[in-house]
């Protein structure tokens, strides 16, 4: 009986200690994440301004979004277009560069640093520099093209390619994805490659039959993080194009920001935010459920 009581006391003590140790993070979660989420959900049904106080208006904000505001669907289309362009390109590129960096080459350390550096450079300053590079009149890219006799496009003022320009800019700073891919590739036991070489497999075959399949956990991670990040793209189009030309690069985050902090329509901004949240959640669940079919773990 005494033993049972002691065991129960220890169990309660363990539970208590657990919550005490995680309490700072739990407080942070509740105060800075859960509470704002609940509050913003409530704001969706009000006509609140900056101060967060407003009248209850039912589903009027959702009606406006889905039936009255032409820009609502446009910004989601623009964002989806960015995701479709950026995420696959970043996965392919980061895998390829990660694979190159895993090879035994001279100056490997130097190249690893070089490819990672853009990821840690200040976003705003770098974006402004890219504005110069993309400039249609005197940008670096069009200057180089002019030397080859090719008339450069209007990278940031042509609505057909403005978003592509932003994708190109963002692909420059995929250092973190490269690092994750590199660590995934390096985790693959060398014995697989040795056996494959003995069997006469070419480098190309080894990549597709060994490297990619065994790297799928890293690819999966980069895919999820990439999709979540891409849906929330803000800095680059905000600085480079301000959403132009003709709203072709206006993303959901930018529209949300404008409504919340420029127009003072906090209620409508919250509505947009929750719509974005739902879409990201759905896409993430879709990827997650598909992962059973294509992600291979060693265990």
């Amino acid at each position, binding site marked *: 009986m005494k033993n049972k009581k002691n065991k129960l006391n220890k169990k309660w003590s363990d539970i208590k200690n657990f919550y005490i140790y995680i309490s700072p993070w739990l407080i942070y979660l509740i105060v800075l994440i859960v509470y704002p989420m609940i509050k913003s959900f409530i704001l969706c049904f009000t006509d609140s301004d*900056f101060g967060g106080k407003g009248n209850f208006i039912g589903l009027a*904000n959702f009606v406006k979004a889905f039936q009255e505001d032409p820009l609502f669907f446009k910004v989601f289309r623009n964002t989806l277009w960015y995701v479709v362009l950026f995420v696959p390109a970043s996965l392919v590129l980061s895998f390829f560069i990660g694979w190159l960096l895993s090879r035994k080459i001279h100056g490997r350390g130097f190249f690893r640093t070089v490819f990672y550096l853009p990821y840690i450079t200040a976003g705003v300053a770098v974006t402004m520099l890219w504005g110069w590079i*993309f400039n249609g009149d005197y940008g670096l890219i069009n200057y180089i093209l002019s030397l080859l006799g090719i008339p450069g496009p209007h990278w940031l003022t042509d609505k057909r390619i403005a978003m592509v320009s932003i994708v190109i800019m963002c692909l420059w700073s995929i250092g973190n994805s490269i690092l994750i891919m590199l660590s995934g590739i390096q985790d693959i036991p060398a014995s697989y490659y040795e056996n494959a070489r003995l069997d006469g497999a070419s480098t190309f075959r080894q990549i597709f039959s060994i490297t990619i399949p065994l790297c799928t956990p890293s690819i999966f991670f980069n895919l999820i993080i990439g999709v979540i990040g891409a849906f929330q793209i803000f800095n680059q189009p905000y600085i480079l194009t301000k959403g132009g030309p003709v709203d072709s690069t206006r993303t959901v985050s930018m529209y949300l920001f404008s*409504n919340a*902090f420029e127009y003072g329509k906090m209620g409508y901004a919250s509505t947009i935010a929750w719509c974005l949240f739902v879409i990201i959640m759905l896409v993430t669940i879709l990827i997650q459920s598909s992962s059973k079919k294509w992600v291979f773990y060693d265990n």
Partner: protein
Amino acid sequence: MTKKLYGVLFAGLLLSFTTGCSRQKNTADSSSSGKTATATEAKSKLSGDLVIWAWGADQEAKAREKAIKIFIAEHPELHITYSIIPTANSAWDQKASAALAAGTGPDVIQMSPDYFGMNTKYYRDLRPYVKADGVDLNTVLVKGMLDGYYDTDGKLEGFPLLANCFCLAYNKDMFDKAGVPYPTNGWTFEDLLKWGKAFVGGTGVNKTYAMAKHWVTNNVMAYAGGGTPYSDDLKTSHFDSREMLKGLELYQKLVQGGYVPTDAAQETMDASTLFISGKAATYFIGGMDAGDTITDAEENGINLGFCTMPCGVSDGKEINIQFATGWAVTTTAKNPDAAWQFLKESAYANDDMAKATCGSGMTSNKSVAESYYENMVYGKCRFSNKIFVDHMGITHINPFGGTLSPAGDIWATMISAVTDDNQNAAAAQAEYAPRVEKEFQNFSFNTARGGN
């Protein structure tokens, strides 16, 4: 257990420090014995605390701080706290509005007439104070600087501090080289299309333009056709008018003809740099940056000339835009009498305060504006602020601020449609004007309808 508790408390404290917000704060108990007649009067009536919030950085913030220090020195009976909140990344909007809504705002808060009633429910109506003082504001305030502070329902929600408007600066050397006569008062954008052609040329870094695209250009073009973007009572949008179409067409010709840079080109080299480097023949020069621009241009060996802003094509009226800042007394002010005293002295009742702000804009204090500010002279060309004083009375308040910024964004999209995407101006107007009309219907001062 105690050790664990201390560990958790420490972690919690660390967390709270990392999530604190930044704010510069100046608190002053005035100790100077300097007095003016106004201060002497006020001293007998005022007491207690006065909390003032303002935004900004650089020159403007320094000038304002100087003025406030004068007020502090002249009011030893008040305990004044002055805080500056940065304006970058909408930090000001968020913090000020959250505090106003929560009732924790200051007694006096900086604001702008181009909010168009955005925060009006948090501001006191100042008409009773004005009436009690019995001062004819037309005799003490610069003409045109008070109008924007009245709501559409007649409430005086704020009081002016300073404002800026514009004039046209031109590069005499470029005009002489091109053999084009200097622009004169009364010019229109149709005139620019004629004489501006001579300045369009070059490629790449050597490209030259007739006019640098100042950030105010979009606002100016809203009036270029001769009309206004909306009615004075803010009830009706004029975006579907012939005048707005004319303005749009003119803008299309200017950008596509190379007279004015595209947005992308201007993003990477700002308008003043384009002008002072001799790549643009003309530039809208504002009171806020006249000194710096003239100094920089003359250092580059540019000879400058000046004339007034352009006139509307059909009505011939000068188009000038006013950017202004002022103060408001909040509805939660704990010391409204002291707050009103501060507003009065900032606006017209304290010449020393007015002179302190003249470095960053035209003071609303009529006597100081028409003497000290007007006589401020810049550069070898001896440019004086008189041109701004003379033309402030005909300015339009920035038409696309605050509540009206959604309309401004739609206007920017219309401009982009015709200048970047080469859409037909009438088609662009047909597509976007109804959206502006819809925004107007939703504005809080026009309807009690639900939804933002």
